[in-house]
């Protein structure tokens, strides 16, 4: 399924300076019972966000009205644990289009790329600068420029480049997905399969 195109995103950001945020926190397993991809944003960070009686936990960042935006900034090793793509869906469905961290878990990063959420890996120093900038001004904006592969703290002009392979970059810019690509080379795959016994 093709997804939204991603080019340049200018937005304030939501800070979550916690390390090793695992996908069980992003979306607990008991919310994985759906058979369609909708409504996952309601349960994003469910147990950090709500008390067991469903009332919001006021100290959690998503419940703090001074923070908003389409960019989520997390601590090191963001998205570790389970392969559940539901975690990426929840991030997207809540309204985030980009996640910034100094380090991403592998499967979560792939899942994000496959649904059109851009994972931006920055240096620990730059991550720290972002957290400080948001702390100084919660409305501070970041600019994520995919064509140029840069992320900028607009208030200070501090900028860093990030990596993404050319293939995935093209997909993100154009809103293509891998299945479109694979279906195009299906004959080659079938020939390969004939020579690969079960």
């Amino acid at each position, binding site marked *: 399924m093709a997804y939204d195109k991603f080019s340049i995103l200018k937005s304030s950001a939501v800070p979550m300076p916690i390390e090793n945020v695992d996908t069980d926190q992003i979306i607990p397993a008991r919310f994985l019972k759906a058979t369609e991809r909708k409504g996952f944003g309601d349960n994003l960070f469910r147990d950090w966000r709500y008390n067991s009686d469903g009332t919001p936990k006021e100290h959690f960042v998503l419940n703090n009205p001074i923070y908003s935006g389409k960019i989520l900034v997390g601590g090191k090793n963001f998205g570790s*644990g389970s392969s559940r793509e539901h975690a990426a869906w929840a991030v997207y469905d809540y309204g985030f289009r980009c996640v910034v961290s100094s380090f991403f878990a592998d499967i979560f990063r792939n899942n994000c790329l496959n649904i059109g959420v851009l994972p931006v890996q920055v240096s620990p120093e730059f991550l720290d600068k972002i957290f400080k900038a948001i702390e100084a001004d919660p409305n501070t904006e970041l600019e994520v420029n995919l064509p140029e592969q840069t992320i900028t703290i607009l208030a200070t002009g501090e900028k860093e480049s990030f990596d993404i392979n050319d293939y995935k970059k093209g997909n993100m810019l154009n809103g293509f997905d891998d299945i479109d690509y*694979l279906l195009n080379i299906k004959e080659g795959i079938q020939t390969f399969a004939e020579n690969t016994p079960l």
Partner: protein
Amino acid sequence: MSKTLFDKVWDSHVVQHIDNGPDVLFIDRHLVHEVTSPVAFLGLKNRGIKVLYPERTFATADHNTPTINQHLPVQDPLSANQLKALEENATAYDIPYWGLGHKKNGIVHVIGPENGITVPGATIVCGDSHTSTHGAFGAIAFGIGTSEVEMVLSTQCIMQPKPKKMRININGSLNKAVTPKDVALFIISKLTTSGATGYFVEYAGDVFKNMSMEGRMTVCNLSIEMGARGGMVAPDEKTFEYIKGREYTPKGADWDKAMEFWKTLYSDSDAVFDKELTFPASEIEPMITYGTNPGMGMGIKNDIPLAEAVEGGVATYKKSLEYMAFNEGDAMIGKPIDFVFLGSCTNGRIEDFRAFASIVKGRKKADNVTAWLVPGSHQVEAAIKEEGILDILQDAGFELREPGCSACLAMNDDKVPAGKYAVSTSNRNFEGRQGPGARTLLASPLVAAAAAVTGKVTDPRELMEEVYA
């Protein structure tokens, strides 16, 4: 050019290489379960395409299933609906389906090897991060997201950049009561939960060579907990012996042909790894975790480290201990516990039940402990009964439940209540993993058994004298 085990398997499955992009990797066998597949099947439907190779695809229900009264209709309507969706999709696309009640039903990573779906040199994926388990047979096996499940259903391929390669060597003999689980928790405690991210790991050395196939499965299973996509052990006679004659392994001339390939599956002596680590077996003690990720583990007799002695952020570390209601410097030995969970794709096999039974034999379950003993499959369940293990468990006051993922991820009713402590043989101690507010201590089946009969964290060696005397 010399190659690693990983290179040999990966390179033989590359359909196409994209410059500055991923490889198109052919997948030999695809395991499907109810939780991560429905949206992928919906994608096929929306595109109007079929499953390309149903004969390379296998479906089971495990994550979201009850572990009691499986013969009755599933009570939770959402779970029942998800199970029904899998059954309908498997039927519609002609995929072998082993649902609740089927004699081959069980946890996806337990039934794969049991039925010979898992073979050396194969590429195996599943929408589950613990797919790394199958690497024990010298396969490349890793977990994928639902978009990728859809890719494999529709084209039998996945697009992945080739990971870097790491080898972990452990030589020497393991200490008493040190199991494969302890070896894995030890490695993760050294590497942290992100220490192997971006790598595929090969486990090498005496310890893995001497380890049983089930032990290798436990170790490879936990590869993801240090961030690695997967782990592998080079196949050997033990591997071939294990798989021979199982339903989906090659037979006759096909077996001979496969063996020719499988015998080439080892890292060449001059093969180069991007990273290589070596630990002495003698350093490893029975392990237990005290925090909220699997890297927060230590020898069971140690004290919880002080924040300043730990790598990483102090705030994150303190948050973790606060969740567990533990203090820096606490001893783990003697801490009271409430629940024991024996099971999961990590430790839900027959050897795990044998180990657990060896400790509880002739003893009684502690009154303050609720124990969930969940076999990984019906085949494991049958072996527990045949070997007389069930009698030992029942004499000690334990009950056996029906197969499934159960309290490992607590999607079903097997939830540890908030604030309670569970010694679990599963793979994750994340906040709320075993139920909202639940506190998990990961450990081996021996440590779990010692906790189950004493009601507190106990060094299993203290209960093993007569066994080893």
